[in-house]
């Protein structure tokens, strides 16, 4: 016991003494990261205010045109829906992963990982096949007599939302699983003995305790969705574009780096804003705060 205390009291000194040399080691890496991240962003920012003429004309056009505003609105709508659906579907799955016995847990875990590792295009095309007019889903629904006409689920935002929710699910399940696993099981047992029903345990204890995890997972999904390209490009229609597709068009078809940069920066600013709100509400590293 006394040995323990003495090592912990020495630890801060050791760490402080080591810091300079540690920093020297990672400095080149930091520099490289800075180059890789800051240079492209800075160049985008510059192009958005310099091309074709210096000024804010690109931004004025972006916010002044109904077409562009609608693309942004679509993007936010789809991202919000995808985030909501991912949380609603992901939470029970994460909870299941956290509580079921190891053997079954790892099977489920493997399925999720496997789907993550499968080629993105392949997965998206698979959804295309499932969702199309003559796809399995429509056929089943018609055979069951639930619908007369096939539902239109590709080349529109429905398809994009479904496809993206599927892609994003692991990004919310995996961190949430960790947060839920860290919750002391005794806390839920105590809640039950206090008289809380399953439902009251869920809303009064489990969800509040998992909230930091839900929030960080949701933020990640939302931000990734804002700039997602592949799924909207394949499952979406030309009438309902999303921002990433728009940027691609600006840059590839129209060779308009100014407009592309401006759109990208709007997304970046929104992302940073959301991140700031998240920090405000939950702080850094307070995820899974515990009793002691």
């Amino acid at each position, binding site marked *: 016991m006394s040995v323990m205390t003495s090592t912990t009291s020495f630890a801060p000194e050791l760490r402080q003494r080591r810091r300079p040399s540690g920093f020297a080691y990672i400095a080149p890496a930091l520099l490289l990261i800075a180059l890789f991240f800051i240079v492209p962003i800075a160049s985008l920012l510059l192009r958005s205010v310099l091309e074709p003429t210096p000024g804010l004309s690109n931004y004025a056009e972006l916010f002044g045109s109904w077409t562009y505003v609608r693309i942004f609105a679509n993007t936010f709508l789809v991202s919000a829906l995808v985030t909501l659906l991912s949380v609603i579907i992901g939470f029970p799955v994460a909870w299941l992963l956290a509580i079921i016995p190891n053997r079954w847990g790892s099977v489920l875990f493997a399925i999720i990982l496997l789907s993550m590792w499968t080629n993105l295009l392949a997965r998206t095309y698979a959804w295309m096949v499932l969702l199309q007019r003559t796809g399995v889903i429509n056929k089943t629904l018609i055979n069951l007599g639930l619908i007369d006409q096939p539902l239109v689920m590709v080349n529109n935002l429905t398809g994009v939302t479904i496809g993206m929710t599927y892609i994003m699910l692991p990004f919310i399940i995996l961190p949430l699983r960790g947060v839920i696993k860290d919750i002391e099981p*005794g*806390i839920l*047992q105590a809640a*039950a003995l*206090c008289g*809380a029903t399953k439902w009251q345990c869920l809303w009064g204890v489990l969800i*509040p305790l998992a*909230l930091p995890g839900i929030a960080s997972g949701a933020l990640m999904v939302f931000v990734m969705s804002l700039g997602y390209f592949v799924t909207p490009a394949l499952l979406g229609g030309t009438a309902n574009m999303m921002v990433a597709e728009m940027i691609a068009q600006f840059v590839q078809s129209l060779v308009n780096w100014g407009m592309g940069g401006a759109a990208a920066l709007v997304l970046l600013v929104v992302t940073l804003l959301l991140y700031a709100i998240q920090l405000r509400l939950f702080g850094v590293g307070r995820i899974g*705060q515990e*009793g002691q």
Partner: protein
Amino acid sequence: MTVPFLQIRGIRKEYGAVTAVDDVTLNVEKGEFLTFLGPSGSGKSTTLYILAGFENPTSGDILLEGKTLLQTPSHKRNIGMVFQRYTLFPHLSVGENIAFPLRVRRLPKAEIDEKVRRMLKLVRLEGYEDRMPAKMSGGQQQRVALARALAYDPPVLLMDEPLSALDKKLREEIQYEIRRIHQETSVTILYVTHDQEEALRLSDRIAVFSRGVIDQTGTGPELYANPATRFVAQFIGDSDFLKGVVAATSGGLADIHLGDETVVTGVPVHGKATAGGNAAVMLRPERINLSRTAGTDRAGIAATVNDITFLGNNTHVATVTSANEALSVRLPFGDTAINGLTTGEKVWITWDPATTHAFCD
């Protein structure tokens, strides 16, 4: 005859090949403070968890006031529990934690506030209502947990080693708090610990657990004076055992040979005692006499002093018998036998046979 308040009837719990609780039967009276005492893995927590409804027994039944509890889910059992680990809701303040069981019962707000106030007073944490659990010490957290568990007036309060994470001084302080709260509320308490001192200090009765069964149930003095098994004798109080052979038995008493020289007569004997069979004779260090001149009778045993430790109000003398068995003697301060005693010295040890016990396998 009235039905016992809480009946545990032949509870058995198996986890695959492991039998955690073998056959536990126990009646608890209303208002009683009963402690499950036993070593790690003896099935104390499992029994408590079955009472709480977190586990279902493989067989057996639990009755509260004559009615079985097994079909009632945890949240409807109305039982209170304080856990070994801290289980306050970290996102709720102290007041909200205590109010939680009342809120889920949808009591009116005024009533909840009044009850929270009374509970905080009971555990002496007035003024801590708005504190978050993370900002409190372990002892304070367990007191809040106690307040939360008592807030809904449960008929039974379960406590699973609630103090094991605290240091010794704090532990003793809270032990007295628990005793006081038990007296003030007269709630029936089932308490789990593996610390005999804690069990003796708190309990009306103690059930000694050993490998999934209760070896003996009784008050502290009963268990100390009349242990039913060698295990209980070892667990309650200090004891040494000397190997012997039964010479004769009659009416629960036996004459026992210890080595060639010593014969003790009229020792209470437990287990299957047959003449010629082996027996272990239990000696309590504080109930034996040490003298420096060999006696003439055969009711004593010769030993050599190995170590002498002064412990304030008593002195501990470690000796070893001629059969090479360790035998501790504890002499009160001022005992003249100590004066000038040195290690390596031969001493003569005697005792009153009626105060010892012999255990046969």
